[in-house]
């Protein structure tokens, strides 16, 4: 099928990538599917093929797979050089190492020149037992502050294919923040669309609007059920496009709800919560507002349920934050 979309929309590639990645419920398969239709895509790794789901690419398109080794700074510079020579590099590591560790390299060799380098990070926030070295609680803040950079955090396997297609269709640098899905992706989960600059309303309510992203979307829907039982009806927005943010939607939520609460697996400083707060502060609306996230502390190693409980990131914490605002 061939569709034509007007110039300036990146339409041709949109369609091609969207078709290729449709149905892919793991990042690795979505990337491979996209690469099979676009010969410019190259895959860069920093020793973590298995945990970044790039073994599919490595084993299927080895001539376009470049294992740089444990040298993230070099990898980002290499990605910049490859993009300047006409390729579209996807560079992989854990969230913390593809952002904080290489911030200046990303700023100078990717963001400033607005190159089509896609930085792909796994293990967002507190979702690792390894410890503080591997916990990315400031990656969104860092990437969001860079001019030209888009920041995408899909809700899970159901949205990852669409997020990869959108990252490719965007003719510039992207930070893709991904969670490792536990076990095999559920093939019955309905696929979710993704459009850069657009949030998705997962659930409509009248009292509180919860704006969230990534794996927290699922927890937010749980909290909404708990609130429903208390006669508090919640809108839940999957704001997978953290930058550009869907400012129009945020402003609309701030007008139409008495309360807005942000919910993120990230520091409350500089992340999605801050981005939403910035829009609301400029919008003229004055909803009651709260932020649920990592509260300006470093965490430690532990299971995700333990850490989410200790650092206030559970559905129950979101529920309590809304109740606190409502009273």
């Amino acid at each position, binding site marked *: 099928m061939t569709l034509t979309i007007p110039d300036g929309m990146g339409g041709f590639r949109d369609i091609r990538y969207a078709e290729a990645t449709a149905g892919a419920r793991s990042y690795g398969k979505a990337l491979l599917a996209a690469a099979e239709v676009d010969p410019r895509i*190259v895959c860069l790794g920093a020793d973590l093929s298995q945990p970044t789901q790039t073994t599919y690419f490595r084993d299927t398109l080895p*001539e*376009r797979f*470049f294992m*740089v*080794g444990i*040298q993230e*700074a*070099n*990898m*980002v*510079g*290499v*990605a*910049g*050089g*490859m*993009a*300047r*020579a*006409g*390729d579209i*590099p996807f560079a992989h590591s854990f969230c913390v190492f593809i952002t904080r560790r290489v911030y*200046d*390299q990303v700023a*100078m*060799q990717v963001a*400033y*020149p607005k190159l089509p380098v896609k930085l792909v990070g796994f293990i967002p926030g507190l979702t690792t037992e390894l410890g503080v070295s591997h916990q990315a609680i400031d990656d969104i803040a860092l990437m969001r502050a860079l001019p030209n950079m888009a920041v995408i955090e899909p809700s899970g396997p159901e949205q990852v294919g669409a997020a990869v297609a959108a990252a490719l269709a965007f003719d510039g640098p992207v930070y893709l923040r991904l969670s490792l899905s536990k076990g095999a992706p559920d093939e019955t989960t309905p696929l979710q669309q993704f459009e850069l600059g657009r949030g998705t309303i997962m659930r409509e309510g009248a009292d509180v609007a919860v704006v969230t992203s990534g794996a927290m979307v699922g927890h937010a829907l749980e909290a909404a059920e708990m609130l429903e039982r208390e006669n508090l009806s919640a809108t839940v927005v999957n704001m997978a496009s953290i930058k550009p943010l869907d400012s129009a939607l945020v402003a609309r939520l701030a007008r139409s709800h008495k309360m807005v609460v942000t919910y993120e697996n990230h520091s409350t400083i500089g992340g999605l919560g801050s981005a939403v707060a910035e829009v609301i502060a400029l919008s003229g609306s004055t909803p009651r507002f709260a932020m649920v996230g990592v509260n300006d502390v470093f965490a430690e190693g532990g299971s995700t349920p333990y850490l989410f409980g200790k650092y206030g990131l559970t559905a129950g914490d979101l529920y309590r934050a809304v109740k606190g605002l409502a009273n």
Partner: protein
Amino acid sequence: MDTNSDDLAEVERRARSIRRRVVTVVERIKVGYLLQGLGAADIFATLFFRELRLDAANASWPGRDRFILSTAHNTALLYSTFAERGLIPESALESYTQDGSAFEVNASERVGPLVEATCGSLGQGLSVGVGMALSLRRQGLDSRVYVVLGDGELQEGQLWEAVLSAASFQLDNLCLIVDRNYLQVEGHTDKVVRMDPIAPKFAAFGWRTLEVDGNSVGEIARALDVARETKGAPTAIVARTTPGAGVPFLEGQMAHVAYLKPEEARRALADLEAAQ
């Protein structure tokens, strides 16, 4: 593609002309990267008049060789070389470092495709060069990548990541030239971080390694010939240069930036005329 010169005397003549431009440019702004500019003029002249495959009429020609100045600040020399080669108009030199000019102290891609990457945050240029060399090779293009580093930049950790990586990927289309002038902001490089011996470090990392007098066009040209013929490994040319080279009263002076009074500029230009 333009024709390069095999006539070393012609390259030397170009180097002298570039030096005159460097002196004139720095005199205009009163203080700048004068000593390094004079010191590396022979390297730049050899690259731009004998080695690099370029098309002055089409700076973004895909078949061009890539040139990256990783230090980015040796621009009195870089822009003088561009002007001498006919890649930018003379008027560009007059705007050097002026507000609003694309010809900034640190070369940026605001200049256009002649500046292949915006460097200046030290240690990054070789990584970009590795990426370009990888892509050019995989695309089946025979363009080569040349990266010029300052010796102080060897103190950056990322540089050695890129050195490992270039050898590991066997990038024989990549050539690194280290401008060994012993000069960094703090003073003499060896008083900051002891780096000698440099060439054996590159050799140990798996590079074809050559040491040359960086103020000898003949030695630089021969080393570049060896680099071009080397298969299976990148080449590092450690080029010892004398800050202020070509102007006797400036030779060997050690200052990261130099003030140039009008009478000193006149004397320097006279010395360069006399050398012909």
